[in-house]
């Protein structure tokens, strides 16, 4: 018993140290580059409009730009000011990831390894240092997941989960398929009860998720954008829908299809400044959106292993995680506008779960544990290798090509 308590204390200390390190890494020189980067050109002016009291958010729901405006109000209107909330959101998402994996696996070491992998993931790191929407989407989705798998009573759990997913949908609509799948799974888990009465009650409880999501979405949307009539609200939703289904941007060259994201093809350069001499590039500063290879490749393998468990062994947790993962990925196949690599940011916690699920198979013997430790070290080194290309530091082109 005492030994378990000691292990728990050590795990808590490691977790806190990891979270502090992650936050400091994300905040370090967060104001660089000191110009707006990629979609910051779009979201930062929207956030400024919130600061001036002229709120607008025509292409996405308004919570993301509103949070950026809060960051600017607290930390200043310069580049660091509009990015600080992203760093905080990214670090909080790590904490919720830890909670989710711990609840699903019951093993602290798996939760720690999963959190470690995300904290040293290049994609998570870069998106935690930019004033864009996806990091807030990740935050609310992970908060909802942490609550969903918690031990609170079902009504409170599903109500809070619905509220958090309503906030996630207020950042980006990408949360809606996730919300639908989570509701179905909630209904499924409740439907396993033997009596008809408890079955009906259980399904009614599952509907708390979409109910509270809708209430939060509509009320916050109207409050943030000062929409006073149902007509205004529905017109804005139709406008956003047409953007997602029809709008074609002039960025096809940097877009990538959804199925290519996990196999890590070309990184997406969201900021690039080249120094040339006699027509030749001799140095550059870049911010690349890319994954950390050891983590992503192992996650891809882990996905198939967990999917196998879900199908063959009818394991509820495996089926839940595979379905939620697919709910965040597959809808991009039906979106006509160009999609980008960083849209897969909310997949990372699920990828961490798949990875630790695979690593669990070799954790019983000493050799396996050494291999897992080595794997974590290689992942951290891989992150360190790309660090200059993630932070707009001076970069010599041949090093990372």
């Amino acid at each position, binding site marked *: 018993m005492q030994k378990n308590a000691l292990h728990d204390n050590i795990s808590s200390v490691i977790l806190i140290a990891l979270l502090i390190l992650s936050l400091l890494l994300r905040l370090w020189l967060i104001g660089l580059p000191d110009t707006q980067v990629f979609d910051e050109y779009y979201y930062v002016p929207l956030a400024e409009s919130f600061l001036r009291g002229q709120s607008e958010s025509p292409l996405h729901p308004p919570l993301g730009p509103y949070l950026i405006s809060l960051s600017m109000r607290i930390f200043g209107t310069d580049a660091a000011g509009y990015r600080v909330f992203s760093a905080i959101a990214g670090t909080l998402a790590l904490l919720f990831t830890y909670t989710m994996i711990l609840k699903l696996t019951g093993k602290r070491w798996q939760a720690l390894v999963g959190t470690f992998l995300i904290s040293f993931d290049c994609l998570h790191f870069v998106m935690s240092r930019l004033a864009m929407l996806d990091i807030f989407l990740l935050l609310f989705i992970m908060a909802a997941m942490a609550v969903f798998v918690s031990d609170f009573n079902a009504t409170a759990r599903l109500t809070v989960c619905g509220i958090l997913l309503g906030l996630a949908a207020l950042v980006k609509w990408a949360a809606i398929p996730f919300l639908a799948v989570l509701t179905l799974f909630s209904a499924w888990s409740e439907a396993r009860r033997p009596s008809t009465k408890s079955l009906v009650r259980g399904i009614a409880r599952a509907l708390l998720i979409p109910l509270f999501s809708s209430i939060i979405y509509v009320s916050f949307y109207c409050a943030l954008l000062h929409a006073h009539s149902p007509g205004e609200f529905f017109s804005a939703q139709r406008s956003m829908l047409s953007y997602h289904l029809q709008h074609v941007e002039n960025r096809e060259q940097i877009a990538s299809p959804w199925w290519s994201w996990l196999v890590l093809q070309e990184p997406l350069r969201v900021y690039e400044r080249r120094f040339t001499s006699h027509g030749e590039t001799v140095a550059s500063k870049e911010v690349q959106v890319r994954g950390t290879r050891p983590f992503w490749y192992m996650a891809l393998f882990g996905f198939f292993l967990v999917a196998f468990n879900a199908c063959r062994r009818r*394991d509820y947790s*495996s089926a839940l995680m595979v379905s939620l993962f697919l709910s965040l990925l597959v809808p991009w196949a039906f979106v006509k506008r160009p999609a980008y690599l960083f849209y897969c940011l909310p997949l990372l916690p699920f990828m961490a779960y798949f990875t630790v699920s695979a690593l669990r198979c070799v954790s019983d013997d000493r050799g*396996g544990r050494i*291999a897992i430790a080595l794997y974590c070290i*290689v992942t951290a080194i*891989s992150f360190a*290798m790309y660090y200059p290309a993630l932070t707009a530091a001076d970069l010599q082109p041949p090093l990372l090509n």
Partner: protein
Amino acid sequence: MEEIKCSSREKMLVIVVLLTVITASAFPAIDYFIKAHRYEALRRALQQKLNAICASLSRDLAPESHLRTEDDGHTLIIEKGSENTVIYKHIRFSGQGPSGTLSRAVAQGPGENRIVSDKVSEFRVIREGDRVKVLIQLRDCPGGEGSPALILSRTLTIRQ
């Protein structure tokens, strides 16, 4: 929490994939850090050369100096000394040849024609009103021909 046991076949598969991922990721990382170390050493060496050139220029640009620039934009002429003894120092960028040929900065004066650096890729003198800007860039190609170069640059601003 019900834990699913892994079969021996799954364990074997996981260990093979894990070792493959570790090996495949470790080699590029080692290669990168060796290259990065080499570049850092080179950068430090070039920085020292650049500092030496700038120090030499600063000495030549003592208050009693007179500056002239030639129209080619690459030549800074420093006239130093009293009315009777004038020492000319030309520092000019020259010898931009085909790829792989390094350029030179040559300090010229009476009885003197020394190479300040053989790694200058750009030496430009820009006149802006009563000021002269001297841009110096040093470069090297450690990876041989076709390899992008390491570059350092510094701009000195001198009032004429």
